[in-house]
């Protein structure tokens, strides 16, 4: 496998639960969508930072050993995961807590069950709900985030990426596949702007953090709070407009021709 991908998918990669533990000394986990079930890949809940800032978190990780990976479906969120996230968003709006999403997930879950459960509807609902969220939201790419599932969480006021993480329409493997083997998976990473550097240069990403930073978790926590604090007094309508303007400005880079 490509060295970069190997690192993002490694068992010891910095994971959402680790960041959440450091970020929120007081943490109340929330589980289940109340209809279909629970999704182990999602770590959701709310709590207080060391400085008493209330925060909701939505973390997705692949799991750190074989057993965890099986339970968490390798980080491919299922419909109960999206629906739980939607329930947690309703809760966060009620109590006016900002939202931090932390992602390391492959593309969508390709399974008959997710299809039967209405994966499309769940993803569409999440994208729409995140876009219309009346409290500030931030997304942090800890590893990979591809396809519509990641996009929902990334419909955010601010985007942070670790310098070696990836955000794309589809996984590098899927990009290589449409070229029928004319390009390797490694080459595919550079064919489209999906790295943190490429997306920062294009204005989609606000902050890039070196994944080798000596105290990465502390650096990340500080950065999240630093980005969040100026957003706290922003009115709901302005937060909603700001998200759309960000993506609109990104789209405008593509000339009309």
């Amino acid at each position, binding site marked *: 496998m490509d060295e970069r991908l190997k690192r993002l998918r490694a068992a010891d990669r910095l994971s959402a639960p680790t960041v959440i533990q450091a970020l929120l000394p007081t943490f109340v986990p929330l589980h289940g969508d109340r209809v279909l079930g629970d999704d182990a890949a999602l770590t959701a809940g709310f709590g207080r930072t060391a400085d008493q800032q209330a925060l909701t978190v939505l973390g997705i990780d692949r799991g750190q050993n074989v057993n965890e990976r099986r339970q968490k479906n390798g980080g491919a969120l299922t419909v109960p995961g999206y629906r739980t996230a939607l329930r947690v968003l309703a809760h966060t709006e009620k109590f006016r807590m900002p939202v931090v999403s932390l992602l390391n997930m492959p593309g*969508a879950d390709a*399974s008959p069950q997710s299809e039967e459960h209405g994966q499309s509807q769940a*993803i569409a609902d999440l994208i729409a709900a995140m876009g219309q969220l009346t409290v500030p939201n931030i997304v942090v790419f800890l590893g990979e985030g591809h396809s519509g599932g990641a996009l929902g969480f990334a419909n955010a006021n601010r985007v942070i990426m670790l310098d070696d993480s990836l955000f794309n*329409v589809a996984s590098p493997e899927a990009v290589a596949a449409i070229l029928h083997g004319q390009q390797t998976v490694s080459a595919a990473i550079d064919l489209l*702007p999906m790295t943190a550097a490429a997306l920062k240069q294009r204005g989609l990403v606000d902050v890039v953090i070196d994944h080798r930073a000596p105290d990465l978790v502390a650096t990340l926590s500080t950065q999240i709070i630093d980005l969040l604090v100026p957003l706290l007094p922003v009115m709901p309508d302005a937060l909603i407009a700001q998200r759309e303007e960000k993506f609109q400005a990104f789209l405008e880079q593509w000339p009309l021709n």
Partner: protein
Amino acid sequence: MSHYPATGQWTTCRVCGRHVHARQWGTWRQCPYCQAWQRLTAKQRIDQLVDADSFEPLPVVARSQNQLAFPGYATKLAQATEKTGLTEAVVAGWATIQTWPVMLIVMDSHFMMGTLNTTVSRRIMAALKQARQRQVPVIMVTASGGARMQEGIYALVGMNLILAEMARLAAVPVPVISVLTDPTMGGVSASFAFKADVVLAEAGAKIGFAGPRVIQQTMPVDLPADFQSAASLYENGAVDAVIARPELRDQLGDILASYRFQGVSTHG
């Protein structure tokens, strides 16, 4: 491979592979041998749905180009344009259906499998915006393999932007009706297709997020014949109704008559 209807008299059914004469297809383009509904071009679809001569296309706001210099994309765009006579995978315009005014947005799977890219997103957003200004109901006929990979994340963000536009329509409110046709998959399925007020599925359509091939690459499963079919989505509660092609126009007319939106003048 796509199967754009050729100009000749004989074409092949994309389901059973038999050769079918132009006259045998009939008005609704149903295979006389296997009864499969053939995928329609945007023009065929519009002709079937709207009152005669009522369709007025919106001015074309954007054309596609290979901005990221993705290998082979420029050629694919040129081929798709030549094959379909369209400049992109969507056509939008004003029309009336049983005298009710509508903004009709029709995707065409013959143009790069109807994939969502920057241009398609822009055209859909422009159409939604104008429908909102005139308070005219929107009908979205989807046919798409999903987001267009050759445009990377630029194709994906269109999903966020279209849904933001739809939130403004909902705030007025202006009704949005979607008709999911074969195929409606990936990023189109997971954004505007399922976010309409009324979601209809055309009989025989395959609708889902991940396609059967992708699923079978991930896990060795036997998928039932009706997997992701309009009928199975209805059984699972994912769509409001399954409508056979000949009934679609009347069904849309009934829905429009029930909403009773006449549209408003934008002048004064």
